[in-house]
Each structure stands twice: as structure tokens, then as C-alpha cells.
């Protein structure tokens, strides 16, 4: 914001007061009293959001936590069963299969989209005609609803008559079934996730790179550093803070991601792409077992919070340095 507009606003505010009558002289109200009334107004300011957060975010989670200790379904609360839902859930092979796929999906989602996003951010920093336009165009996969992009990807790869399998066949790879083969379906879902998420990373990295002082590069060039050295020794450390932040956010996005997987494969084929969220969803809304379903979601969230906290600590360390 320019200082001009700020000064203008201040003038306007002052004028607004002037119209209402002569302003009270400074210190007319005791400072402590004013501080108290400030606190009260701030509480009023925060109140609507607090009510919404408690009612729509905290209450459901606490309720779900209690429900995970019971054997009920969507209609009845059921009986108290202790931690048996948790114990039963972690003893099923489905849980570990889903946990493994969630890990693969998250790791490829985070680092794949980061690598592509950073690469494009660096590339768009070089002199390219109309690079502002490309910056905007390349953000579209993030802006378009996942329902639309999943539909389009389905059209591209789902059946043997789809364009991409036909192309692969023509190139001599044989009949590639992207969504029918378990391993290929996993790969396809991960690539789809990278496609959806790289614009986010590109934006984060672009704004981080924009703050890098050009003189630093100049100096390293004069000192004879190779471009790889410049990248690892200068660029990466400077953007490390933003990198950690983007990793935390993307980890949360990937682990909690439901539509990207569900709309492309529905968790199939033979549950190959059933992540923990999809497993929790189908346990609750298809098998009507709320207890185990919530238990799965809770275990997942716990691990997620631990990882997020670890990365968050890393940021604070970077900040201190």
C-alpha cells in the first residue's frame, strides 16, 4: 500500500470526527478505562468467528472423538466400547494398505508439485516474452474445480478408447490401462495430484524468489559459482522458509484430500488407490460404521499433526538463524 492512501485515509478519518463535533482532547478518558473498553470490543469482534469455530469445527471433532469409543452408526449412538475400535482398525490389512498409499500419495504430491512448481517459478523468472500471461495460465489447474479436472482426466485416460491409451498404443507401449491396473492407477492418481497442486507451489515459490536480492546472484557470479552451486548454496537456503511452509500446507492438503482420489478412481481398482480419507469415508457412509471410520480419521490426523509440528519447528529454527 502506498503511504499516500494511508495518509488520505487518516485525513478522511479525522474529517469524519470533525463533522461529529469537536474531538475529545487526548487523555480525556483514563488510559486504563480505554484499554478495558478496547478489550471488550475486541472480544465482540472475535465472538462470531469463535461461535462458528466451536460449533462447526471443535464440537464435531469432540463428538466424533466420543463416537470413536462407541459401536454406534449414523442413527444410534451405540454402547461404550473403549479403544477397541482403534485396536480393531489397526489390525486390519486394509488400514495398513491405505496408510501406505496415503504415504506414497503425500510424498509424491508434496515433492512432485514442489519440484515442478519451483522449476517453473525459476524458469518464469528468466526473460520470456509475456511471462505474466503464462504465470496466470499455469495457475488454472489449481483454480478449476477438481470435479471438472477429474472428469477431463477420466475422459483422457479411463478407457482403452481414450486419447492417451490410443497415443501410447501408437507409440508402441501396447494397451496401457491407466485406471484398471492397480500400480498404474496409483501412478495416475499421483500424477493427477501433482498436476492439480503444482500451481500452488509455483505461486509460493514465485513470491519467495521475488524477495531474493539480485545483488546476491551478481556476487556469486563474479566469484565464479556454477549455476548449480548458486541454486543449492544461495537460492535454496534463501527460500527455505517458504519451502517448509509450503511443505506443511501441501502435506495437510494431500493427507486430507478426498475428491482428487475419489473422483478419479473411487479408491479402486481393487482398493489400490484407497487412501485413509477414502477408507474413513467408505467405512462411515457406505458401511455405516461410524466408530471405526472416525478412529481411522483420528489416527491419521494425529500422525499429520505430529509431522506438521515437526516441520513447523524446522521453520522456527530457520527463523532464528
Amino acid at each position, binding site marked *: 500500500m502506498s503511504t499516500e492512501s494511508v495518509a488520505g485515509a487518516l485525513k478522511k478519518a479525522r474529517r469524519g470526527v470533525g463533522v461529529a463535533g469537536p474531538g475529545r482532547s487526548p487523555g480525556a478518558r483514563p488510559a486504563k478505562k480505554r484499554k478495558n473498553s478496547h478489550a471488550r470490543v475486541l472480544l465482540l469482534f472475535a465472538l462470531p468467528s469463535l461461535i462458528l469455530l466451536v460449533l*462447526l469445527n471443535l464440537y464435531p471433532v469432540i463428538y466424533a472423538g466420543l463416537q470413536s469409543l462407541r459401536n454406534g452408526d449414523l442413527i444410534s449412538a451405540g454402547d461404550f466400547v473403549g479403544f477397541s475400535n482403534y485396536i480393531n482398525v489397526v489390525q486390519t490389512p486394509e488400514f495398513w494398505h491405505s496408510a501406505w498409499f496415503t504415504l506414497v500419495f503425500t510424498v509424491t504430491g508434496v515433492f512432485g508439485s514442489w519440484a515442478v512448481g519451483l522449476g517453473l517459478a525459476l524458469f518464469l523468472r528468466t526473460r520470456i516474452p509475456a511471462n505474466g500471461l503464462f504465470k496466470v495460465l499455469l495457475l488454472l489447474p489449481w483454480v478449476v474445480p477438481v470435479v471438472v479436472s477429474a472428469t477431463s482426466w477420466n475422459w483422457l485416460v479411463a478407457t482403452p478408447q481414450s486419447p492417451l491409451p490410443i497415443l501410447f498404443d501408437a507409440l508402441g507401449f501396447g494397451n496401457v490401462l491407466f485406471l484398471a491396473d492397480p500400480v498404474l492407477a496409483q501412478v495416475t492418481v499421483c500424477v493427477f495430484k501433482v498436476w492439480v497442486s503444482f500451481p500452488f507451489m509455483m505461486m509460493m515459490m514465485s513470491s519467495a524468489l521475488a524477495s531474493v536480492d539480485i545483488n546476491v546472484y551478481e556476487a556469486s557470479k563474479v566469484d565464479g559459482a556454477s549455476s548449480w552451486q548458486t541454486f543449492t548454496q544461495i537460492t535454496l537456503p534463501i527460500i527455505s522458509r517458504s519451502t517448509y511452509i509450503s511443505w506443511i500446507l501441501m502435506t495437510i492438503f494431500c493427507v486430507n484430500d478426498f*475428491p482428487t482420489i475419489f473422483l478419479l478412481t473411487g479408491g479402486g481398482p481393487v482398493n489400490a488407490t484407497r487412501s485413509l480419507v477414502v477408507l474413513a469415508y467408505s467405512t462411515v457412509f457406505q458401511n455405516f460404521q461410524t466408530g471405526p471410520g472416525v478412529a481411522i480419521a483420528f489416527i491419521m490426523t494425529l500422525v499429520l499433526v505430529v509431522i506438521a509440528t515437526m516441520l513447523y519447528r524446522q521453520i522456527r529454527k530457520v527463523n532464528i538463524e
Partner: protein
Amino acid sequence: MSTDTTDVPITGKLQVGVTSGKRRTLSQTEHRGKWWRLVIILIITGVVLAPIIAVFVLSLQPSLGSTATGWTLENFSLVFSQTNVGTWLKNSLGVTLVTVVVAVAVAAPAGYVLSRGRSRAVSGYSLILFIVQSLPVVTAVIPLFILFAQIGLVDNLAGVTIIYVGSTMSVAVWMMAAYFDSIPITLEEAAWMDGTSVFGSFTRIVLRNSLPGILSTAIFSFLLAWNDYLVAVVFLRSDDNYTLQIGLQTFFQQNQTNWGLVMAVAVVMMAPPIILFSVLNKYFSVGGIGGSLAGR
């Protein structure tokens, strides 16, 4: 854009003391490199956008059982006249716009508290926001479904809207707070000295200078509500209450999907975010979310 000129000072400085002939060669290489890079970025953009371009192209092609040839708008007139797409579009727009307005109205004052407050209660509030943000929507959806079933908010657009407002809240508050941080508090202090109330200084000084922050938050809420699938698929049950996201799924047939019609609906669905984005893309900041997350 400032990044466009990043190379200039480097070459400028390095060429100090170099003959003018050498300088011309350098800039010629650079010039050629520039066009190569244009070709590369064109190819990358083309490949990346292929799925989105395909949606547009297919929506303009004659659909199954059509007599039309070449490019046609027939799919669009078909989906609007013979299916419920008009209703779904109205539902989606209504739900999204209400979400945006309520989210900004609630998040702006809360963000102000987060930005200006310096007490323990405020850091506790900030911690609540952080925890809430990392909870999966699936966990919240189950109890809300049970609760909403008791008070008649299942299969109800108002119920879905309430959930959207709730799920935008933590990030919206963060975004507003991050923007308010950039407005110097000295302005408000001066106004308080003149006898302006906190509310008065908030609306007349802070909000008046926060249009970019408000727009970023509004865009974020818009995309969250418009693009949601999970909440809508759980809560909306009858055809007349569907949003576009759920409505589109009814077009997929077991044996043969009529891709022309599907893609026409898809175009209707992605037009609002793309239009909004192309008009307001400079306010579209995800960096703000991340920055505010790490700052606290």
C-alpha cells in the same frame, strides 16, 4: 512485473570495462535465448492445459445422436433446456455468494483481533485456528451430519452453506490478519486520540484500506465453496438441491457417457472461477495464507 527485469542489472554490471562489440554479442545470445524459452514455455503450458482445453473443445462438438456437424453450441442449449443444470447453477451461485459474504463479514473483525491483540487469549485463539485447520473435513462431516439430521438441515442448501462458512473460517481469519498487519497501527492510535471508537477506526481506517485483503479472502472463500465436492455429496440428497458438482455426476452413464453434454456442464462449472480469476488474479494470493501461518 518486477521480475521481468531481473537479468538487466547482472549483465549491466558484468560488462563494466568490456568493449562495446562484446556487449552486442551478449545481448544477441540473450535475445535468441529469450525466444527459445518462449517456445519451451508454450509447449509446457500446452501440455499442462490440455485437459482443460479438451473440456472446451468437447463441449463445442456435436454430442451423441446429434445431427449437427462441426462446431456447435447445441450441447449448452440441450443441458439448459432438458436437464436441471439451470437449478444447479442457481444453487451453486447462491450457496457460494452467501458463503463469501458471511465469511468476509465474520473473518474481518476476527482477523483484526488476531492482528492487533497482544494478550494470552489471542495466542490461544490463534492456536485453535491452527488445530482446526489441520483436521480432516471427513471427521467434521460425520457429527455434523448427525446433528443436522436432527434439526432438518440435511438435504438443505442452508446447511451446506453453514458448513462452508465454518470451513473457510480459520484460513479467512488468517488472511485478513496478515493483511491488517501491513496497516500501521499509528493511524488508528491517532484516530483514538481524536476520540474515534475502536469500531469507528476499524471501519473507517482499517477496512477502507484493506480492499486487496478483503478480495483475497473473498476469492479464497469463493473457490472453497464453489469447488467443494465432499460436503455436497454427503449432505445433498435430492436433485433439486444439487449443486453443479453433484449434478455433473448424474450425467455419467453405466455404458455410454455422453461426453458432449458432460463437458458442457463442466464448462458452466469452471466458467465462474476462471472469469473471477482472470479479472482479479493479482489479488489471488496463496502466499498470504502461508506467510500468516508461519508468522504466528
